[in-house]
């Protein structure tokens, strides 16, 4: 690469960095990929922005309230509950921005109509205790008991040790369990259980065209980490 080209590239990078200089982007999206790996990938896409990827809902909410970042990337339902961020982009997979939720159980099918107040269901915590209870209730006629965990892989011990009769996950996440474990998994789709995958929220009454452009241009690898293949 010629010296002149390198200088031009450097100037472009600096200018790009300057555009993001004041921007903080906070991310909370439970996935099997570690937050530091997602963070590295996003940092490459949004040069100059300060990006923090959180592993836990509590940390994400506490820091977002404290720092009021310019943008947040999280599950659509989390953004909807936050209030002070407007959804500007939705992550989509195979053209759709929603995903189907399923119950994963071992050896026996867990019939959604047979769920009682004593049935224990495991789930990733992405809304906090009270809101998660409300979220899970929306799928069933009777609210089951809920066991919340921090990471997707933490749901596997719930099934291994019979601590829950099933786990509630997105259909996309089933492959992780089938690849990792030899348990005899049974997948039961839930009717009317389409939930938004991931969204980008920009702080109310502000604009951040650079962030929008950067997220729309994320590479395939980073998009896959967020469970999508495009943003719209």
């Amino acid at each position, binding site marked *: 690469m010629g010296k002149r080209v390198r200088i031009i590239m450097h100037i472009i990078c600096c200018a790009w960095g300057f555009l993001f200089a004041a921007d903080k982007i906070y991310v909370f999206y439970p996935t099997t990929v570690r937050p530091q790996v997602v963070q590295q990938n996003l940092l490459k896409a949004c040069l100059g922005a300060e990006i923090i990827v959180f592993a836990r809902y509590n940390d994400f909410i506490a820091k977002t309230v404290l720092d009021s970042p310019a943008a947040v990337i999280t599950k659509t339902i989390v953004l909807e509950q936050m209030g002070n961020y407007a959804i500007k982009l939705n992550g989509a997979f195979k053209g759709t921005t929603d995903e189907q939720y399923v119950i994963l159980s071992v050896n026996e099918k867990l019939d959604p109509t047979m769920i009682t107040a004593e049935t224990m269901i495991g789930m990733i915590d992405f809304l906090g*205790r009270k809101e998660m209870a409300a979220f899970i209730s929306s799928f069933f006629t009777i609210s089951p008991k809920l066991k919340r965990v921090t990471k997707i892989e933490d749901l596997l*011990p719930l099934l*291994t040790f019979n601590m829950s009769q099933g786990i509630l996950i997105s259909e996309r996440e089933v492959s992780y369990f089938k690849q990792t474990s030899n348990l005899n998994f049974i997948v039961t789709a839930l009717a009317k259980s389409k939930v938004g995958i991931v969204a980008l929220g920009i702080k109310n009454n502000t604009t951040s065209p650079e962030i929008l452009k950067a997220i729309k241009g994320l590479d395939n690898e980073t998009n896959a980490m967020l469970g999508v293949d495009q943003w719209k």
Partner: protein
Amino acid sequence: MEMRMRRHSMNLKQIVHWYLLVFLLMSIAVESFAKEPMLIVRRSGKDFDEVVKGMTEELSTDFTIHDFIIAKETEVPALVAQIKAVNPKIAVLLDNQSISLFKKYQNELPETAKIIPTVSLMGILIDRLLKDMKNATGIFYEIPIVTSGVNMRAVLGVRIKKVGIVHRKFMSDFIGKSSTYCEKENIKIVPYELPDKGDDYTPLIKKGLKQLLKKDSVDAIWVPNDNTLLTPVTIRDVWSQFAKESKIPVIVGVEILVNPTLDFGTFAVLPDHIALGSQAADMVYDIMDNDWDVAGRPVEPPLSVYKIINLPQAKNVFRVKDENLRNVDRIVK
């Protein structure tokens, strides 16, 4: 006239200030009355702090948390004074010392006394510690062998059908229970038991490892967190030598043992302390919903783990794929 108005306005300001102060104090009082008092008994240290963080974040909206940090010499009267001052609805006990202290306090109570429910964690083989405690449950500190095995299998991408374990007799029960869960994952545990007491374990460990590798053809070794079997001498003369020669993956439960300079552990699986605190918080809520009755609630395994990999060994010996490292918490180079 103007003076009188100014004085009147001053009085009004003072009254408003007093009302605001009283309102503030009342709000604080109402809030603390509405919350349930909870006592944590623990020693000081980073791991304990993380567990308390995980618990506090979950419980602080509904509980007033009193953190009682004990020292080696803390005795029952100091605990009794705390219990009298806090009047806790529930107590969370972190590690063996806190559990023993609380057990002593419970043993001194009259038969008719109300028993404060407890959730215990971070103790060694906690189910045994809780056997003779009333209204008590907890979470194991030991990572289940199946959890470690499944995680390592997924990361290294190797076949693991038989896991060999050299252990002392006191762990037989834990290993026996683990076998059932490992079978579900098509992993067979092959134990090699050593006596609980002995003068020199070096030749015994060596013999055990040799048998597991040559006779039983194990695919991996799981090393228990047992200080008697893991001394600087046994690590140098037996464990590390075995890891180098056998070329099979070694699962450990202590971070330092995956240090590449030791060339011993391939994969370390440790408790995730913040998540352990959250799991304990969930138990506290369950017990509260059950009118402060533990009611035979079983001791739970820890759900969340922290994974560390010895990269040079994983790359050179097991050809681990880069994409598999994405769900490892720490990569030691």
